[in-house]
């Protein structure tokens, strides 16, 4: 039950993008296609989970003064390893994601969870928290990507889903389109939160 609550808190009340507003640049950049967003979310998830568990396991040994440096070392190692695997197994996706895979190192979602949660909890709890946050991040990424790909191309994961008479609205393929979709979703989420009686 306790683990379920941790998972839920990572997913909705501590949602990295909508509530904590972390990692926005990569969120807006990779959400052109659902496929890219999915792989980006998976990679951020794997990085968050592995580095959280490692940091939680080493939390009594990591020197306080050098904790950010240690987190960085751990994140860099996980990201490079994951990037190599992605490049070997899915070269097309790796090319589409471009520099954003390497930039996961500086993604605030990962660093934020390490500093805020993993550094002061047991590995099991850190794992569940990271899983929740990763799922929250993935949900947001996939939602934005679905809307952008549908409105901008009339497709979802490369498959034509819009009816023939639909004329794709190309602005959603451009960076301003990402901001428009993100702002609309942020408005909806905040409105729902206010409606549910929670203070934001």
């Amino acid at each position, binding site marked *: 039950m306790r683990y379920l609550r941790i998972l839920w808190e990572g997913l909705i009340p501590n949602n990295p993008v909508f509530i904590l507003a972390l990692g926005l640049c990569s969120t807006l950049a990779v959400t052109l296609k659902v496929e890219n967003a999915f792989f980006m979310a998976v990679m951020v998830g794997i990085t968050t989970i592995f580095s959280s568990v490692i940091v939680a396991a*080493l939390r009594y*040994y*990591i*020197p306080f*003064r*050098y904790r950010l*440096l*240690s987190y960085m*070392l*751990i994140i*860099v*190692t996980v990201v*490079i*390893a994951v990037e*190599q*695997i992605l*490049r*070997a197994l899915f*070269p097309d996706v790796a*090319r589409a994601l471009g520099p954003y895979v390497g930039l996961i190192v500086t993604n605030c979602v990962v660093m934020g969870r390490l500093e805020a949660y993993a550094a002061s909890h047991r590995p099991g709890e850190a794992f569940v928290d990271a899983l929740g946050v990763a799922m929250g991040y993935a949900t947001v990424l996939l939602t934005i990507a679905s809307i952008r790909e549908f409105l901008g191309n009339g497709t979802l994961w490369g498959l034509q889903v819009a009816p023939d008479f639909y004329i794709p609205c190309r602005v959603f393929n451009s960076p301003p389109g990402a901001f428009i979709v993100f702002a609309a979703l942020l408005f909806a989420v905040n409105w729902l939160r206010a409606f549910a009686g929670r203070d934001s």
Partner: protein
Amino acid sequence: MNAKLTGFVSEVKFMLVLATLCALLLLITRAGIGARADLSVAAIAAAGQICSLEMPEEPTAAAAAFNQYFTLRSRGRIQLWQRNANAGLWLCQARGAGMWAEIALMFAYDCTHRRIIGMRVLEQNETAGLGDRIGEDAFFEQFDDMEAASGIEMKAIRIRANQFDAVSGATITSRAVETIINRALRHLDQVASALRVRVEVRP
């Protein structure tokens, strides 16, 4: 003072151990999967086209076939492979800065006759309509059987055998191709001569 020093030493020790462990993990990943990551399906197909070899389309089979034909001799931004059946034939995948983004290209070089056999551009993100014409056949074909004993040269009009026509309106991109190939050729010479020395020294 002494306690402070002991604390500092133990902290540094921890950091060193952590850094070593991370480096080891990366080396293991690199050894296990890095070689596959370096060689894309597009690169294997280009190698097949340049050297007129039959390469299967399925990625795993293509990688196996490639490894059968070529042996990796140098890693990094300039990767070199030597043809197993013909030690004088080298395949080179080189990367370098283009006008907007990185250009990756592959060419085959015959060390015996000092000629480039063929060239293909694998990745480029140059200006649409101008620089991106380096990805067209008309540009590649200039490099078929090109003399390259002392490097290649970009010229507005091709006169000598080691010169190629620049793409009109894309001087920086064409210059980038020239630089990448010349740098790769210099590296290839070094690697090939080092390999020759080692082969001669060993009985």
